[in-house]
């Protein structure tokens, strides 16, 4: 084939191959394909910013237009990663500013972004279009002002759950009058009030605006005006959903919503005053995505709302929905793909709402297309899990979080091994799993035996011995990310399966039994692994070698040990130098 197939033609074939896995496969076929592929690769995803350096990436892929980077480990969301750990994006932006002048899109997750970084982005890429910052931190609204002011072709500015030093809402006014290209704006995580007139004018002059997610500071009374200026919206995040009870507000709101004929997604809903909920009823039938995870709506109103959304595919909601609400959901929303139920008050020992395993069971019975579940609850049984597994064989993501650790099956007092075993046995396409409750090594045996497509596994307060970890590392062929906390897993399983670690993106273990000596050994033995010990008690050298480390983060890397570690992180390598 290679004999008369010109490069441009092969490049044209590659242009129809976009998935990362496929492109990676293509690049490993042979020398000529490697070369052609690297020159026409436009989109790069780096799942761990320390696995590769900007220099290496730029050297290999000179013509990139879209970059996605991830920084801190997932458990950073649970405050398990100390501040200052790392994940700085600035060196990447500096390097890309020189190498990729045509860069259009940057997506970052769990990275530290500074105002300097944002200023650099805004001034380096003339065709910059999309900035998505997810769970990022380190910048202020001044940085946002630079983006607003300088990115002439900005289409998307999306701040998802970021920690922004919100100096003022004035930054929004930095969008010049000539800016008409916005397609998506998400400022939901910001606290300060932005200038409403600036916001209205911005919305009015961007005819392609499809997604607008406001922050809490935008009052309900302002919403109708915005909606009238943007009836083409597909996605809307309201601000605070409360106002004094006035009929004109309600009618104005109702009318404005009914004008949004193509609205598919709703979110926001802080501080809901139930009287205003019916304003959205007219568009409920078109809604496919509903994020009520900040909404303090109680069960009857919630049930009424969701049961009007017959085409609902995704629901994020607080446990106020209760079993009854979930029953209504199961009866009305046959197209449901994804359900997330968050705890309204996880800290109280006694349940504050009537949400049990029954809710999830009824959804599994009523919604055959269910693929993705994140469920917080206080009790579970093996029977329920087995039923769910049999009902929803298409599950790809199943995360069950029983709030109290070591909670057994409430009916039989047994561990929940059998239940989770059924999940992995019946759901052959399962890619992500979080386990909780009382669990022995047995559950990990099931997981290692059956969960062949599993890519990410989260374990907390589970297992009896190293055997558990061994089952997972030796059995789960597709495993990429493993995060463990407070489990009795130690050195043996880790060292026995050291080679496995190089086939994974990362391993996190905190409050386990892995010793400093084992960490050192691992670091010395495995040249392409970065073994980082995180210990805020001081240098591990000050303790005996058989002392367990506080936290351990192991990841494969071709960039060598990183150079930006704070004082409480040590990289184990051959020289054993800090």
């Amino acid at each position, binding site marked *: 084939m290679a004999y008369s197939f010109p490069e*441009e033609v092969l490049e044209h074939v590659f242009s129809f*191959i976009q998935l990362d896995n496929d492109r990676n*496969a293509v690049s490993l*076929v*042979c020398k000529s394909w490697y070369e052609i592929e690297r020159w026409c690769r436009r989109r790069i995803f780096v799942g761990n910013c320390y696995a590769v350096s900007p220099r290496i990436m730029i050297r290999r892929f000179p013509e990139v237009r879209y970059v996605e980077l991830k920084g801190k480990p997932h458990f950073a969301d649970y405050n398990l990663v100390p501040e200052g750990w790392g994940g700085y994006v600035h060196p990447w932006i500096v390097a890309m500013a020189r190498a990729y002048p045509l860069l259009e899109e940057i997506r970052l997750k769990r990275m530290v972004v500074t105002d300097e970084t944002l200023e650099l982005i805004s001034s380096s890429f003339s065709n910059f279009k999309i900035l998505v910052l997810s769970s990022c931190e380190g910048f202020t609204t001044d940085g946002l002002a630079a983006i607003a002011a300088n990115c002439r072709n900005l289409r998307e500015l999306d701040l998802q759950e970021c920690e922004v030093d919100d100096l003022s809402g004035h930054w929004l006014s930095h969008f010049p009058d000539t800016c008409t290209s916005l397609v998506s704006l998400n400022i939901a995580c910001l606290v300060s009030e932005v200038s409403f007139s600036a916001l209205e004018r911005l919305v009015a002059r961007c005819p392609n605006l499809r997604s607008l997610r406001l922050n809490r500071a935008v009052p309900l009374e302002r919403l109708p005006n915005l909606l009238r200026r943007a009836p083409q919206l597909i996605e809307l995040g309201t601000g605070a959903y409360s106002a004094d009870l006035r009929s004109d507000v309600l009618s104005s709101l109702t009318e404005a919503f009914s004008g949004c004929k193509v609205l598919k997604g709703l979110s926001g809903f802080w501080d809901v005053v139930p009287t205003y909920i019916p304003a959205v009823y007219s568009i409920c039938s078109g809604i496919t995505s509903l994020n009520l995870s900040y909404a303090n709506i109680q069960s009857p109103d919630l049930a009424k709302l969701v049961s009007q959304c017959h085409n609902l595919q995704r629901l994020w909601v607080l446990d106020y929905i209760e079993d009854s609400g979930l029953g209504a959901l199961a009866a009305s929303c046959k197209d449901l793909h994804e359900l997330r139920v968050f705890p309204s008050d996880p800290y109280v020992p006694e349940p504050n709402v009537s949400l049990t395993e029954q809710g999830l069971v009824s959804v599994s019975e009523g919604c055959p297309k269910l693929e993705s579940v*994140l469920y917080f609850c206080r009790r579970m049984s093996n029977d329920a899990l087995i039923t769910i597994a049999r009902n929803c064989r298409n599950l790809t993501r199943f995360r069950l979080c029983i709030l109290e650790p070591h909670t057994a099956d409430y009916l039989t007092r047994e561990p929940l091994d059998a239940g989770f075993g059924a999940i992995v046995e019946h759901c052959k396409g399962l890619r992500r799993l979080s386990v909780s409750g009382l669990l022995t090594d047995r559950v990990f045996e099931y997981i290692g035996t059956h969960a062949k497509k599993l890519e990410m596994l*989260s374990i907390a307060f589970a297992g009896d011995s190293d055997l558990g970890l061994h089952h997972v590392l030796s059995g789960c062929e597709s495993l990429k990310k493993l995060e463990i906390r407070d489990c009795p897993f130690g050195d043996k399983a880790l060292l026995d399966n050291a080679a496995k670690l190089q086939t994974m993106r990362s391993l996190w273990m905190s409050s386990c039994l892995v010793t400093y000596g084992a960490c050192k050994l691992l670091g010395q033995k495995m040249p392409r692994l970065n073994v980082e010990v995180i210990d805020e008690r001081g240098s591990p050298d000050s303790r005996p070698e058989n002392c367990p480390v506080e936290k351990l983060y192991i990841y494969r890397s071709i960039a060598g040990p990183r150079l930006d570690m704070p004082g409480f992180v040590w990289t184990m390598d051959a020289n054993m*130098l800090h």
Partner: protein
Amino acid sequence: MIIETKNTHTPLLLRNPKQSTEHRAVFLTHFSSTISISLSFNYLRIDSGPHISESRNVPIWNAPVKRNSEENLHSLMSEGTMAIVKPEMKSYIWVQTADGSIQQVEEEVAMFCPMICREVLQTGMGSSKNYAISLPQRVNPAVLGLILDYCRFHQLPGRSNKERKTFDEKFVRLDTKKLCELTSAADSLQLRPLVDLTSRALARMIEGKTPEEIRETFNLPDDLTEEEKLEPLRNITDDPRIRLLNRLYARKRKELKERERLKNVEVEEECVDERSVDELLSFINGGNGGVWTIFERATKNKKKPEEKRSTKDSSSNNENGSHDKNDMVDIVATPNKTSILQDSTSVAFSPKLEFDDSVFEDELDPAMKEELDRRFCHWAKIEDLYQSLCNGNGSLKRYTGLDQRQ
């Protein structure tokens, strides 16, 4: 349609109705993309050389705009409207493939290929066997047949989108080799729609496969080394840091050589250091690291992170606390519940890796530059120590021995 007949004038009625001029007229009037080409083609033919046939002077675009149907044709014929159109032989274009074989192709089919079309228009070739258009090398007779089948189908304007799609789907059900040849040939003939169709089909054959499977499918060599597959830490030839180091070492070597040369001129007593290179190095490096480790520790942690306190307004958040709703805490309870509350006062660090002195010499990023400096200084220190050991009369052999260990 490989018929080697001479161009003769045959009366209309004897001709195969399916190959009528009306058919071609319909093609010409409806096929907008080639209309202007055909029109200009006609004008060109009128004006150019001896291979023109009289029939080209016919304003056939005035022919009735009717779909290709025999009834219409016969009715037209009986009405005598065909009198406007001169009796006309079926027109062919002559093409020659790389293997030397020549064939005729119906004009409307051949003209569907931009490359052939251009050749006809610009050079006037293709009207006879002697002036056959030479097709690009990538077009062999077999694949030409396939391409012509494609053209023959698609050049008919009467086809619905569904028909075209169905045809296309069936058309690309070929073995890999044929598909590749077809893609390549279509590309050389600039037949864009076919290139896209076949490229997509090839892409589908590649998707979902492992590199090994792809190699098998396309019969490709496995010529990447293990090293290349893993994208190694040290790609000796490629790493600009290594290259720069080597350049610096080479420069140093040259200087020392020069100095050596000058010293030898002055006939001095040679200091012979009997110690091996290893011994020397361990002496220089000291027991547990010596110069190297001291220097390492000195440069590391030079840049301290800046602390920046952020004013976190935890009270204004919802009563559930400032949880990250996207990925909630899987297990909230810890053995010591109070530790969670302590977590709420967070300090946001914004450490900056100082790039103020970022003059990017040799295109190294500052982190690399720092490490480079470290190495070079290390080398300088070794060299200095070494010089002092041997009273400045270090043997060149020792030097190169040291060098080879790098």
